[in-house]
């Protein structure tokens, strides 16, 4: 098969197909990239492999109070995530559906708790919610103490997880075509019904991913909790206490317990999104 003449363009086409890099060079590069990626994965996996190796499988024994910590963690995390969904969803929806001058300020506010190191975040919360603080004092008069109480524990979890949920929920809402919401309005449905019957089902996967992320972050929150809610003791603080109290051997069972309750939700969300 001969190459046909490209009559009016002959003078212009200076590129030669053969001048492209030979296939074996490309293949070598592909292998280098693949090697980088695999090395990265192996690297991420290593500590968990190390955990499997190091765990004294024969003597995994829960310490006293570990199950209490489990109950605290699961119970309050469920509550915290529910609260985060409760106020985070309108914020995310607003960020997804409105554009206004100064929106970046709102975005900054959402990002700030995510940016602040947990230790500092804990101190900031003490400054604002401590019993003698500008906010804590009036709240205390109303009988709401925000130090070493379940409410303080929730506070820590909420600040630790809300930004992740809001960011995920926002992009989930941005993925719902506005057309569908508009058509629902013209079909006589109120904005309220539209949200519940159209927007929510269509963004459910993205929202689910946000919930999974918030779940993981709230469950694992340590730095903030340590400062403002040493009690009630959830799994991360119990991990720390066990370490000091008994040593590493008391950490393994708790760690596995943690994975056992932390992983199913994100894995389920991953499976559903496929």
């Amino acid at each position, binding site marked *: 098969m001969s190459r046909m003449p490209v009559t009016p363009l002959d003078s212009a086409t200076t590129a030669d197909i053969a001048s492209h890099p030979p296939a074996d060079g490309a293949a070598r590069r592909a292998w280098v990239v693949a090697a980088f990626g695999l090395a990265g994965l192996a690297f991420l996996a290593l500590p968990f492999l190390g955990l499997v190796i190091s765990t004294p499988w024969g003597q995994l024994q829960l310490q006293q109070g570990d199950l209490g910590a489990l109950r605290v963690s699961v119970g309050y995390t469920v509550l915290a995530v529910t609260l985060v969904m409760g106020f985070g969803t309108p914020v995310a929806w607003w960020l997804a559906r409105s554009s206004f001058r100064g929106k970046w300020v709102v975005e900054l506010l959402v990002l700030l708790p995510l940016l602040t190191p947990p230790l500092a975040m*804990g101190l900031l919360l003490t400054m604002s919610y*401590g019993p003698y603080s500008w906010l804590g004092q009036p709240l205390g008069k109303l009988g709401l103490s925000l130090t*070493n109480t379940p409410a303080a524990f929730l506070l820590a979890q909420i600040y630790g997880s809300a930004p992740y949920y809001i960011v995920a929920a926002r992009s989930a809402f941005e993925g719902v075509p506005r057309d569908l919401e508009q058509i629902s309005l013209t079909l006589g449905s109120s904005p309220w019904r539209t949200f519940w019957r159209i927007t929510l089902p269509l963004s459910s996967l993205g929202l689910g991913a946000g919930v999974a992320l918030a779940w993981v972050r709230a469950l694992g929150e340590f730095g903030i909790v*340590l400062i403002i809610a040493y*009690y009630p003791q959830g799994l991360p603080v119990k991990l720390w206490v066990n370490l*000091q109290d*008994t040593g590493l051997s008391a950490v393994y069972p708790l760690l596995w317990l943690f994975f056992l309750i932390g992983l199913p939700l994100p894995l389920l969300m991953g499976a559903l999104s496929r």
Partner: protein
Amino acid sequence: AEPVLKVAYAGSMGALMDKALGPAIQQQAHVQYQGQGAGAYGLARLLAAKQISADVFVSITPGPMQVLQKAGLVGVAVPVASTQMVIAYSPQSRYAKDFEAAAAGRTPWYEVLQKPGVKFGRTDPKTDPQGRNIVFAMLLAQTYYKQPGLAKAILGPVVNPSQIFAEPSLLSRLESGQIDASSGYLSAVISHKLPYIRLPNEINLSDPNLAATWYDKAHFDITQPDGKTETLSTQPLVFYAAVLKNAPNPKAGEAFIKLMRSPQGQAMFKRYGYSEPKGGDLR
């Protein structure tokens, strides 16, 4: 580069270590000082599990050091300084006037602490020596002042969630005015420039000579992680130091201990509010 000297020390010693002893040893032994301060038991457990490494470990009370001795990482530990329990208070507290009066000896401090609404802070008796020591101090005060129920009235139960905070946040909480008073070591309270109330030697746990005759009368029970009940006794508030057997740089470690025990080192201790070492070696 200069060899590294790693010192793991009880978290309350931070100011002294980082600002005085550390710079001094860098000059003397031509090493690069790296100090790591945290809860003494926590550090001891991490060292014992070989999760972290250090050349020198400095513990408050013998307990954490004994964890390492049991693990076979430490032979003999030497006392390098001592401190005492004090009650630190917040100058912003609405009871500040009362605390000032107590500090001046005009009113009994334990009455101020029992005022309704006073928020008192301490650390976890399960994991921190200081958390145990404040309980002992209150039990001793109860006997010393002949005030039955004093400890219970001030502290509540041994593990009282409304008083117990993680160690790093306790003094900051006091500083920012979020509690009225807290337990503290004299040394640490001085570094943080906080006002405090001195306690009599019979209560402040600083004198090993009082251990056998007086301090040992205080006991309390605590539930062990394995569910058994353990009865705790006082330990003198002495700082012990030792070079670890698996120290990467034992020579520098020895030099550091030597510095701490030298007149120059002792002067630094004194400057930061510590007292002279008391009692004998820990074997």
